[in-house]
């Protein structure tokens, strides 16, 4: 967290100014974008080593939001862990619960009804749209365009009111349980959801007019923070960031879970049309296209959803057999993995979470080298991290 050793080194380096003739040493400036800053998405401390305005290195200091999730779970029973998984990546709560439920169901070999699968996919895709709206809106606000931020949040309000109608909460749901979901859909849900799908398509076009195709925005983000494909894979990038570098890798297709193999959707990748493949504009645009694909999945799911009982397979006590499992899902931010080790009791022995934002953040130094301070904001916004996921 607080790294005092490297700071000591830097201070003494600065004091050794060599004034011999012809050998004036220019010193690097260390700028601290502290934990409280309007554009680091959460409490993140970035230490920038600058040479004038050019960045030599970025060192992120994390841990300001660490809440001991993994240790805490060892004292809970399996169903009681779900409110805690919500709070990790708080902008995509449904998907955290989804990943956890899939992991425990695979461990216990629980069969769940088909209606439950459809509901989970619908909620997951709505959550994906909501999370991408936050990412795009705040990215625009960081770059300077404040209006698309409000438009994105207005649309996100509609999704949140759909969630509120179903389970009663807007952000931290405790909805997807092991073996099922907590409430069945409200009778009006499907009609309102279909209305939302038709309402939202022109809004994506409006967002494109206002922000995506704007020449100033393109100039700020194209060719900035280029991540070549090899480096991306080596760092462990996943999710829209990896797809923007050109690789068609989506866990919904390559390692299918739930019923995603029944739906027909494309996987958008970045093609460098405004600059190079893998720059910030590509990462931004892949998210816009993914929202459209989510709408496609939603249309199919809302039309095909069967009837059934959603709480029939929820077990009274969850007591998995002794064993361990690693299962992964496609979070809006990347690959969210749960490693669960059970010793046969009602409390998990160990849960480890592979947070996508944690891994994506590690590449920040590599991406920012050679750019200017204003670009750090652009690159950080395009990677789309949530500190709850980084620190857990």
């Amino acid at each position, binding site marked *: 967290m607080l790294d005092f050793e490297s700071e000591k080194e830097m201070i003494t380096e600065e004091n050794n100014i060599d004034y011999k003739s012809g050998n004036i040493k220019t010193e690097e*400036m260390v*700028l601290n974008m502290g934990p409280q800053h*309007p*554009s680091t998405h959460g409490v993140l401390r970035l230490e920038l080593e600058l040479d004038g*305005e050019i960045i030599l290195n970025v060192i992120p200091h994390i841990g300001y939001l660490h809440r001991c999730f993994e240790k805490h779970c060892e004292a809970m029973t399996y169903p009681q862990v779900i409110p805690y998984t919500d709070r990790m990546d708080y902008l995509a709560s449904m998907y955290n619960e989804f990943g956890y439920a899939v992991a425990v169901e695979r461990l216990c070999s629980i069969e769940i009804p088909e209606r439950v699968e459809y509901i989970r996919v619908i909620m997951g895709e709505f959550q994906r749209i909501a999370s991408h709206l936050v990412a795009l809106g705040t990215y*625009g*606000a*960081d*770059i*300077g*365009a*404040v*209006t698309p931020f*409000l*438009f994105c949040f*207005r649309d996100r309000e509609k999704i949140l009111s759909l969630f509120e109608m179903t389970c009663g909460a807007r952000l931290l749901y405790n909805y997807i349980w092991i073996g099922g979901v907590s409430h069945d859909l409200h009778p009006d849900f499907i009609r309102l959801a279909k209305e939302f799908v038709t309402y939202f398509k022109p809004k994506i076009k409006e967002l494109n007019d*206002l*922000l995506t195709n*704007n020449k*100033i*925005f393109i*100039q*700020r983000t194209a060719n900035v923070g280029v991540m070549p494909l090899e480096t991306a894979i080596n760092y462990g990038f996943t999710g829209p960031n990896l797809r923007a570098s050109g690789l068609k890798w989506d866990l919904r297709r390559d390692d299918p879970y739930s019923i995603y193999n029944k739906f027909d959707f494309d996987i958008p990748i970045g093609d460098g049309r405004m600059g190079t493949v893998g720059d910030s504009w590509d990462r931004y645009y892949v998210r816009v296209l993914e929202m459209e694909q989510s709408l496609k999945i939603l249309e199919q799911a809302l039309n095909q959803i069967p009837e059934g009982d959603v709480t029939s397979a929820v077990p009274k006590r969850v007591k998995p057999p002794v064993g361990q499992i690693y299962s992964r899902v496609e979070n809006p931010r990347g690959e969210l993995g749960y490693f669960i080790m059970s010793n046969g009791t009602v409390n998990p022995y160990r849960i480890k979470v592979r947070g996508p934002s944690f891994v994506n953040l590690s590449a920040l130094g590599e991406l920012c080298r050679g750019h*200017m*301070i*204003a*670009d750090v*904001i652009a690159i950080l916004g395009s990677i789309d991290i949530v500190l709850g996921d980084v620190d857990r």
Partner: protein
Amino acid sequence: MTIYNFLLKLTGSGILASFIQSLLPLFVFILPFALFAVLLERKVSAHMQDRLGPMRVGYHGILQTVADILKLIQKEDITPTDTDKPLFNIAPILVFAGSYAVFAAIPFSSAFIGTNISLGLFYIVAVSSLVVAGILMAGWASNNKYSLLGAMRSAAQIVSYEIPTIMVILTIVMVSGTLNLNTLSEMQTGHFWNWYILGGPGAGLSKFLLIPFMVIGFIIIYTSTLAEVNRTPFDIPEAESELVAGYHTEYSGMKFAMFFLAEYANMFAVSAIVVAIFFGGFQSPIGYLGNTLGIHWLIPIEQFFWFTMKGMFFVFVQMWLRWTLPRLRVDQLMAVCWKYMIPIAFVNLIIIGLITYI
């Protein structure tokens, strides 16, 4: 009959008359305008973003700015330690003076102009550069890395963007032959087809040939003056999401209020210049009510009204641009100025010079 003559008759002393006359723009115009403009910006931005803006103070929030000013006046004036006290205290005054001094040469109506100097435009350009000195002082004296960065960027930006402004002003001077703003406005009498944006007074081939180049000139000067007042897309010095608040981070209370007021006064000043040059100054586009009714003292009031309306419209467009566009990065800002605006302004100048020669 000008206001100066009126005041002279009233008081009998030339000095007192000119003193009162020079205070008039401040109290009659700038302060109420600044109060109004702050509220207008908040309401315009709110309605563009599908929300309501201030609604509680007064009817639909009309008294919001009064509440803001009262709050700022009674705030504690925090001066950080290790600042350069004289520079810290003078900086807001210099910025405000630089913005306000421009109003001396702006023609509000045919009866009122602060000073009728024959070098109106030259004086305006010269005096508005005081703002650069003020900003640099503010940034340096704040003893804060972020403020210093903001101030240096701002100084570079303002100084660079003065060049396209001056080139377009040169264009107009070539076409009209005078630097005096009052005369410029009076040359565009008649109806709106006599305005310079549409070629200027007189008829003939050269007028129609001039139109596209005048439009280009207008776009260039509008954008450059946008950069001079530090508005988006050129508001790197005040970039909220990067440098907290740039060169005025460390100011609180009344000093901050002065920066604030100076920004809005400056906005109106540059809009007024654009209006005076291209859009007919205080002339009305459709003829005067006073003329049709035969009431001659109504005409200066109508002119004042038209001038204010046109100025407000351009201020509104400045606000509209702020809430639509993202921010340019500092090096891109410089690139736009030196690689795009200056060459185009230069070519524009040459072509217009050729056309007027014809």
